[in-house]
């Protein structure tokens, strides 16, 4: 699936919920089910200090696609990470670079991607794009 197809699918899933509590519960459950980053990747190098919650992210290339794994010490942050990983992982670097995160607004979670939120997510997206850019350069 393309990034925008996945994003449409996520928007569909979230449209089933009537209130914030159901939306958050779903996100929390997604956070709990996120495949954990391998312990050897949970390094100081891979950490994004977000002041409030910590985020770890790792990237690997597999058949011209970038595989992201990530983790956070806060479960809501981890839930959003799960959504972002589902969108951007296992995609071609070029598509990742061109992809955007506007869909987060449509599922009512915009405030979590605010640059002032200090949860590490904005930096995480930057890092995902940087990885994609680096891999794209390798491919060229």
């Amino acid at each position: 699936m393309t990034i925008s197809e996945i994003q449409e699918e996520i928007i569909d899933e979230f449209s089933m919920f009537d209130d914030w509590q159901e939306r958050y519960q779903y996100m929390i459950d997604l956070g709990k089910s996120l495949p954990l980053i391998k312990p050897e990747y949970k390094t100081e190098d891979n950490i994004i200090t977000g002041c409030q919650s910590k985020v770890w992210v790792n990237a690997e290339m597999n058949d011209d696609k970038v595989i992201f794994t990530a983790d956070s010490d806060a479960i809501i942050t981890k839930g959003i990470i799960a959504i972002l990983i589902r969108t951007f992982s296992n995609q071609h670097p070029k598509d990742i670079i061109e992809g955007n995160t506007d869909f987060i607004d449509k599922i009512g979670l915009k405030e979590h991607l605010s640059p002032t939120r200090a949860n590490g997510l904005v930096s995480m997206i930057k890092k995902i794009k940087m990885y994609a850019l680096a891999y794209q350069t390798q491919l060229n």
Partner: protein
Amino acid sequence: MINVNKIREDFPILNREVNGKPLIYFDNAATSQTPKQVIDVIVDYYSNYNANIHRGVHTLSQEATDLYEAARLKIQEHFNAKHSYEIILTSGTTHGINLIANGFSSLLQRGDEVLVSALEHHSNIVPWQMLCERTGASLKVIPMNENGELIMSAYDSLLSEKTKLVFVNHISNALGTINPIEEMIKKAHQVGAAVLIDGAQSCPHIKPDVQELDVDFYVTSAHKMCGPTGVGMLFGKEEWLNKLPPYQGGGEMIDQVTFEKTTYAGLPHKFEAGTPNICGGIAFGAAIDYMNTIGFDNIASYEHELLSYATMQLLNIDGLKIYGTAKDKTSVISFNIEGIHPYDIGTILDKMGIAVRTGHHCAQPIMDFFKIPGTVRASFAFYNTKEEIDALVKGVETAKMMLS
């Protein structure tokens, strides 16, 4: 006695909704809300008096100057300073601390010691670290116990003739501990050290008397006590303020300027370079008036009631741990629920319209002491109610259910 329903009418913001729910504001230790009596003064100033002060011969400038200086007198009276020129109007607590730290650069030397408490806010740690780096003096830390109380016997043994300065907050922002500053000041003076007290967290709850405390420097911010942000005060004993060099150069703080030499203005202007926050200073005075009308004894006893009630209710939640259990504490509760990150609890509470603070509260050393990434902190003011605390408890229970 506090008539909380009547008091709440003074605070327009308490009528608003957040995320579709009535706002419950429990982040008072970060900043307090502003009553209409103070907002009116701000509007009135910009509507009728706005001018630059101290230099103008025109009427507006004179009136604005009178209002600003009247505010200084109110502040002097409130803190019971001996002279009005011992009150320096600053941009806030951090400004006051930096002003003193900078001033002591020329008074300290290698071998001197500076004591700070383990309970400090970053703003009362970093300027002293910078001071020690500049002067070669060393920074020593007064440790605390598991309850979040400073260990007085350790303080006694740290004090010596080498101690030149002691910095401690009156009340800890992260834990709410009220420190025994009277005793600490007395002991510091016995070895000839000066003491600076950070009163950012105390001034919303108690009325400090700087002469009775015999404190050398006392700093606070207006926005913690119903005033606006960007203004605060530094009290300094006259002899100390005369000894310290100016902090910033600029207009207002000079006597004569030539390219060869500048002589400085007297107190308090020596430390008030540039155009000050005129409106803020005047509103600070109005905030002090407002709080005194309610009465600090009333505020203290009502907030204590809220604290006891909230502590009891919150402790009923399984797995909830309160950090900071000092015998003497103010209306701040820092807590965590076992296995749940404070950020997650804060986020869920926000969805319910409840404002709390999460994180390390700019006091990382305290969090390191307890080996936690941070806490959820609910801090209460005299305009909060028991019903709001009930909503908090219910909110925390819901958050726990969702996050476990």
